[in-house]
């Protein structure tokens, strides 16, 4: 638990704070302010005294009651850590998280604490207990949970005898039928078969329409667009944007694409950053195409040079042979005609290959100039983005 003692005023006690009456009156459900989470590196005992890195830093956003927010970002961007911090599983190392005191917040955890040797029925009570619900809470919902999971009489069989899909459906059904006030879904929407996924999505839509606050982590743009209104974009533990879900998806996709090319940092306001990023990406695509073209052109130059050299060698050989023949014996008339034809052919070939090489070199030069211009333009945009 070491790794640089943080300043006292920066550290929260670990429990998310309660929002003020004023915030609650304004319909606020969750507020994250300058929040940062440090996680240890290494493994085993060395994690206790080893280096720690900021898994999240300087995160600021608010969630209104009944709002559905998508959390986007590449793998390792800190999405799960953010949800864990809001759920109160881990404490922030700086800043704070505020949650309305009348609301419970938890991550959807299908099948948490399932024990294979216990029956489905026993595991429903078991798992719900871990999720904070006493057995009497579950009794009234039990039938609904089993019906939604579609496992029928299997509910009294040990979970070890279930198929993976059945186990997942039961866990998901339980979690969705006893949801907290602030429901957080972390990549679990792809559970089960198509029919079950459709029913689960329908149930989540019902939860959202019933004014439940929802935070969803998903890589599926369509799911997020269909369920959420707002998006929080994270990249390497930093908050990139909090904006409309479509813009957030665009920004997140831009970051993903950006990762595929040499790294360019994208930071700043959502709209402007998105606009500049789009331009930058278009230019990068252009640059990529031009670079391919230039490479092909360089190959063409090499080939034409080889052709020209081969033609030149042919001419030299021809001239050498002609000199030898002229010195020894005079060629017959048919031989002269042949020599003239060959002469024309090798010299024409030399002329043609030389012309081709010249054209290829000129094209290569033109492409190099275009590339230099494009690179300059890109550097300008990169600077602009950094400024944002």
């Amino acid at each position, binding site marked *: 638990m070491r790794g640089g003692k943080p300043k006292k005023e920066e550290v929260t006690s670990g429990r998310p704070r309660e929002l003020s009456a004023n915030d609650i009156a304004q319909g606020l459900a969750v507020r994250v302010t300058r929040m940062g989470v440090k996680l240890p590196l290494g493994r085993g005992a060395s994690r206790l005294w080893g280096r720690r890195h900021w898994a999240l830093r300087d995160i600021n956003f608010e969630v209104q009651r009944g709002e559905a927010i998508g959390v986007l970002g590449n793998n390792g961007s800190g999405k799960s850590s953010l949800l864990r911090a809001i759920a109160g599983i881990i404490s922030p190392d700086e800043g704070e998280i505020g949650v309305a005191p009348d609301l*419970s917040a938890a991550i959807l955890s299908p099948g948490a604490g399932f024990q294979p040797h216990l029956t489905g029925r026993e595991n429903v009570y078991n798992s719900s*207990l871990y999720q904070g619900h006493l057995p009497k809470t579950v009794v009234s919902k039990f039938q609904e949970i089993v019906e939604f999971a579609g496992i029928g009489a299997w509910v009294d069989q040990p979970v070890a005898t279930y198929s993976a899909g059945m186990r997942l459906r039961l866990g998901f059904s339980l979690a969705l039928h006893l949801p907290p006030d602030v429901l957080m879904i972390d990549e679990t929407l792809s559970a089960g078969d198509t029919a079950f996924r459709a029913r689960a999505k329908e149930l989540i839509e019902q939860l959202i329409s019933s004014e439940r606050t929802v935070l969803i982590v998903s890589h599926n743009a369509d799911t997020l667009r269909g369920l959420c209104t707002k998006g929080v974009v994270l990249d390497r533990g930093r908050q990139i944007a909090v904006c409309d879900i479509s813009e957030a998806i665009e920004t997140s996709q831009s970051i993903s694409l950006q990762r595929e090319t040499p790294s360019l940092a994208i930071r700043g306001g959502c709209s402007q950053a998105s606009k500049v990023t789009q331009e930058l990406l278009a230019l990068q695509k252009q640059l990529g195409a031009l670079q391919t073209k230039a490479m092909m052109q360089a190959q063409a130059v090499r080939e034409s040079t080889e052709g020209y050299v081969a033609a030149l060698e042919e001419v030299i050989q021809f001239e050498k042979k002609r000199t030898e023949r002229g010195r020894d014996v005079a060629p017959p008339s048919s031989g002269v005609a042949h020599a003239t034809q060959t002469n024309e052919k090798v010299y024409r070939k030399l002329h043609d290959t030389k012309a081709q090489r010249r054209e290829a070199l000129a094209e290569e030069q033109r492409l190099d100039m275009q590339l230099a211009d494009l690179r300059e333009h890109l550097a300008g945009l990169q600077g602009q983005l950094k400024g944002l």
Partner: protein
Amino acid sequence: MTKMHEHDRLGRVRRSVGLDRLRYIYHLTALRIHSEIRNYSLGFLWWFLDPLINTAILYVVTAVILQMRNEDTALNILIGLLVFRFLQSAITKGAGSLRPAFKLSERLYVPKYVFVISDVLAEAFKFVIGTTFVIALLWLLGGGDVSAPQVLIVTAVAFLFSLACASLVSVAAGLVRDVQVAIQYAFRLLFFVSGTFFSLEQVPTEWQTTFLLNPFALLIQEYRVALMLPEQLNYAFLVLLMAVSLILLAFGQWILIRYDRVLPKYVI
């Protein structure tokens, strides 16, 4: 039906709602016991079979092979094993209880100390059943001198001591797996030096006081006094052990509560 955490935030039981927390511990303990019974075909019968089989084995080794025999050898071993197995299981299981809690902590908030308490309580429940069985056995065989208040006092001290140890080592074992292995070795040593299969009288007189400074030896000896001997408990030592246990318990629980949301960061 309302949710348990109806007035709570973040899906956890609120500290001030003590009754709900107690209910939570109760249900979690019941779940542990139920799960253990269901895990074996013979279920709870193992709670009786385990000490009986171990007593038979130790009796053969000590009384038959080593000729360390007196009239109460079998009962001494049975009581010694019962107490030692309780302390061993409670501390070992309590120490290991944070691992599953950390696994759940990937997605759920679970108060860690509740897991330690419920694990020790589940073992205490089995111990109470075992003690009742021994009392019934003594009554049937016509031996022993059972003093119910003394049994209750020693049980309370044993419970406090095991909970204190479990709370303390649970954090270390939760963070570093090797601690769990070290605990196994520690118990192997304690088994031989705590009077599990021999009585206090068999220890040289000059060593007896030192011997009783070992809490395991003290609790085993006091159980024998409460169940079999017409003597008074060693209250001075028991009060001392209880005081130390309370301090350790308070410290262990303070760590578990203080670092409740920090510990999951360190476990992978």
